[in-house]
């Protein structure tokens, strides 16, 4: 479709900063009526900030937003909805004990009569109509808790269009969907397009962008890089825009001697994945690649004892181990730098000192008391070795930058003597300079005999830093590549199997 009926959304010179970070820097985007605009960008590029501003959860620092030519000051969710903007988040916001109908009409139940009684009949009818519009067969009386993720998403879409939605923003909508379900979603999107709804589609998945988007805007480091016509561009062009610089400089890689096998995993089964088998060797960086929902996080959590293992075996140095809890994992010299470091990795309101020693409190003294001098010594050692920027060791971790917070988590595991360190998206939300420091750190550790398992969805990162890459898709291992063999196309292909 090359004829558009005008611009339905215009965001001009939007800037938003947080303490220490410029999330969006003079970003201007326009959305044509009836089109699907894809938004691409790495982690930290500013995509989620953009969404939150449109949804009214954040207030822009400067810039203007026009819907259908009319300027809107979006001060909160109510104004966003009033201007016709609806957002569907990755984490679905549904009330799980209520039915589909009830969820669609939250806060806006249809009422009739002088006594303003809730009209269940009319609501069920309208719900059916909405579901029909989307060409979906679903019983509106089903309880949300019983639906699959894909079906829940459909309910959210139905909710979004139940009151004139002009602009639908979808954030990584296919994260938890199967190939079939993704195609169903695309059918729905096309239906919506034909009804005049304009869609902003945010995703990592280039293949999907090519399939569903009309145009693509690329964000990088808070700035808009360019907008492409989806028909006229290719993967290379997009990836280069996303990453922005010569890949070689960004990902320093050293050759580190790789030794014996230290961990072996056989047919591991847990919630979220099946039959995981792999080896890890000393000094090696093993990368795990996969799209959202592929089971990567579940896998590493199981390795760390945070998810219950339902089958399979784990061997460390040839000895079988039963990793029942993080406590046990720690004892086996395994450490996990989690995905959500602020919630799972750090006690934000405690000091740098207390966080670094968090996983090794027992070694802070010979008896039940803590030897303050010993603690100081240890903490200062790690701060120097790793290069954590903090004014004092008693500084609240909360006030450190993202990169330094990550370093504190790493220090914690080093202090506890971890030999196998699992990093889940190690450079998410960290600026470029700090990223390079972390890559160097990782390799320092490998040189000293540690082994690293790294989950990453940043293709350039994983292709450069990992020695071997395992690809996961929908809970299974689909491929394994060595660094020489791997390429972006192959990884993406394996991740979509």
């Amino acid at each position, binding site marked *: 479709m090359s004829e558009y009926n005008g611009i339905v959304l215009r965001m001009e010179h939007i800037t938003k900063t947080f303490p220490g970070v410029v999330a969006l820097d003079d970003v201007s985007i326009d959305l044509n009526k009836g089109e699907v605009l894809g938004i691409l960008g790495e982690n930290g590029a500013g995509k989620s900030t953009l969404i939150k501003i449109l949804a009214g959860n954040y207030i822009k620092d400067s810039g203007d937003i026009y819907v259908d030519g009319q300027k809107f000051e979006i001060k909160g969710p109510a104004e966003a909805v009033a201007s016709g903007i609806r957002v569907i988040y990755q984490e679905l916001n549904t009330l799980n004990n209520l039915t589909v109908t009830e969820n669609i009409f939250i806060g806006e139940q249809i009422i009739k009569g002088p006594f303003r009684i809730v009209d269940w009949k009319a609501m069920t009818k309208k719900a059916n109509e909405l579901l029909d519009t989307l060409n979906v067969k679903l019983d509106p009386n089903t309880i949300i808790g019983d639906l699959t993720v894909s079906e829940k998403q459909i309910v959210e879409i139905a909710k979004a269009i139940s009151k004139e939605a002009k602009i639908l923003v979808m954030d990584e909508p296919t994260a938890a969907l199967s190939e079939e379900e993704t195609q169903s979603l695309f059918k729905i999107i096309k239906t919506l397009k034909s009804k005049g709804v304009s869609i902003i589609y945010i995703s990592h998945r280039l293949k999907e962008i090519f399939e569903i988007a009309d145009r693509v805007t690329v964000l990088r480091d808070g700035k808009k890089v360019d907008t492409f016509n989806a028909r006229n561009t290719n993967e290379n062009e997009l990836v280069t825009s996303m990453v922005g610089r010569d890949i070689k400089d960004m990902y320093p890689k050293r050759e580190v001697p790789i030794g014996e096998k230290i961990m072996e995993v056989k047919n591991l089964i847990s919630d979220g994945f099946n039959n995981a088998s792999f080896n890890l060797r000393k000094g090696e960086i093993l990368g795990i690649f996969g799209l959202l929902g592929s089971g990567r996080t579940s896998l590493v959590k199981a390795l*760390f004892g*945070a998810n219950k293992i339902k089958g399979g075996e784990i061997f460390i140095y040839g000895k079988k181990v039963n990793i029942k*809890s*993080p*406590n046990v*994992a*720690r*004892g086996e010299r395994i450490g*996990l730098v*989690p995905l959500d470091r602020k*919630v*799972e*990795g*750090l*006690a*934000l*309101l*405690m000091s740098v000192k*207390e966080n670094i*020693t*968090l*996983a090794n*409190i*027992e070694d*802070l*003294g010979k008896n*039940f*008391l*803590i030897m303050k001098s010993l603690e100081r010594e240890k903490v200062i050692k790690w701060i120097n070795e790793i290069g954590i920027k903090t*004014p*004092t060791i*008693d*500084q*609240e971790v*909360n*006030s450190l930058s993202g990169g330094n917070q990550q370093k504190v988590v790493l220090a*914690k595991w080093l202090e*506890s003597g971890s030999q196998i360190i699992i990093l889940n998206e190690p450079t998410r939300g960290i600026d470029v300079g700090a990223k390079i420091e972390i890559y160097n750190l990782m390799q320092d550790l490998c040189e000293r005999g540690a082994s690293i398992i790294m989950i990453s969805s940043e293709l350039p990162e994983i292709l450069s830093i990992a020695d071997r890459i395992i690809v996961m898709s929908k809970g299974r291992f689909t491929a394994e590549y060595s660094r020489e063999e791997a390429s972006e196309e192959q990884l993406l292909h394996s991740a979509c199997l």
Partner: protein
Amino acid sequence: MAEIKAAWVSQKKKFRLNNIAVLFIILVVMFGVFSYVGRPFFFSVLNLIPMLNNLSFIGIVAAVLTMVMVSGEIDFSVGGNIGLTACLTAVLLSKGLPGWLVIIIALAAGACMGAFNGFLVTVVGVNSIIATIGTMFIWRGIAYTLTNGESVLAMNPVLDYIGRGFIFKVIPFPIVLFVIIFVITYIIMNLSKWGRKIYAIGTNPLASYLSGINVKKVKFINFLFCGITASLGGLILTSLTAVGMPQHGQGLELVIISAIVLGGTALGGGKGQILGTLAGILILSELYNFLTIMNVYYFYIQMVQGTVLILVVATYEARQAMAKRRI
């Protein structure tokens, strides 16, 4: 930027200590006012010694309960525990069991109660607020059942010493216990590994768990000791009053928790100081002692207790809300 940050950090520590210092100043001022208004009785040995005794047994419970609260849980059943211990002690004594044995049994009972609370919260996964409100009723009910609703005399040389004995002929035993326990809990919370774990768990239980800390074990043991200490408090009270009443300890939860929150412990855990609890206990004991001497009707004092609880929590909620905006 770095200098500003450093200054701000030490400011925060100073703020916390300042907070407690302020409380102690308020304490002294109140004491002065009460001594004047309540003269001559308030400031006399006849009043101060009983006040200190009373404060001792409440304070002992409060000290360990602070540990529970900093770890993010709460224990409403301490009052019921005291009642149960009191009645158990009295009944066993009346059956002729030797004093020292009864004391051991009482403390063991306290341990069981604490363990049960710990079990409900860590193993079954019940919210500690509701679980301990429930066990509060159970302990209280058992107390009534043991004595059939009546008060039973509890006189015994060993027991008597706990509440009414003296060290070095001058210092009442309860106060000695009070000091010892406060010192112990202070050391644990501020200087020991266990204390560090408690603060970590209270600040972020998930991160603590994912750093290898055995959260359930720490919480369970805290509840266990809370139960034992509450029983100890019950023994002191029984000794002081020489009687085991099922009503012993009724309403004490309100006072103790108010004192702990007043002392700076946050309801959600992670923040709190033993010294603060000390200040809180001293202030509230003083207040209620004063009201009692002034012959204020018991149930009006209850009203004050309720109001104090709400006010104290409100103040700390407000302060927490301000602090949260920083994150």
